[in-house]
């Protein structure tokens, strides 16, 4: 399951999307909006995605995880639009029979997502906003 969404990320949905009765482990990752960047207070974040391509890249990463690690299912959700401080901008869930594969694959997914998925973050600070690129 791969999704771009404007609504808050719900972990229970991600878990329901990945877990099967043969799985003994679910590794999860949430990227959350921090209130500070390089010493400056951040008011909120804004995410822009290249819709269509972003989902395509997320699907590709999920497929790679499934082929390279002994995992059962992968779910990735990423917010677009405004994200408040403390909210999750990205949520990842990976289910597997055993924990090491689940955790390895979860790390692979977030690391690869941050490197390749066409999504951009804009930090809104007092008096303006800057793209993080």
């Amino acid at each position, binding site marked *: 399951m791969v999704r771009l969404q404007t609504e808050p990320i719900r972990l229970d949905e991600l878990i329901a999307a990945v877990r099967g009765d043969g799985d003994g482990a679910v590794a999860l990752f949430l*990227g959350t909006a921090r209130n500070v960047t390089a010493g400056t207070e951040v008011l909120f974040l804004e*995410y*822009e*995605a*290249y819709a*269509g*391509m*972003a989902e*395509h890249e997320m699907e590709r990463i999920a497929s790679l995880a499934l082929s390279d690690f002994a995992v059962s299912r992968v779910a990735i959700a*990423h917010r677009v639009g405004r994200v408040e401080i403390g909210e999750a*901008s*990205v949520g990842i869930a990976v289910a597997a029979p055993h924990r090491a594969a689940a955790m390895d694959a979860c790390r692979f997914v*977030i690391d690869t*997502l*941050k*490197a*390749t*998925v*066409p*999504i*951009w*973050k*804009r930090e809104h600070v007092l008096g303006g906003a800057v*793209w*993080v*690129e």
Partner: protein
Amino acid sequence: MTLRVLYFASLRDRTGVGEETVEIASGTDVSALWSMLGDRHPRLSAAGVKPLVACDRTYAAWDRVLDGVAEVAFLPPVSGG
């Protein structure tokens, strides 16, 4: 040949448009397109570093010839996650 060109994030700020249509000759590659677009949007080339490129929603090289491509997107370094 008609091509849809997309700009994202700071590149869209530089062009002032998120999407536009351009006419290119057969055999044009991404580099040549980028030069054309720089003439149209002087602030684009001022970006300095070359952005990433996607052709029809897949990452592509700068020497990719655009024959048969419908959509080219210029992508600043990504910062999702």
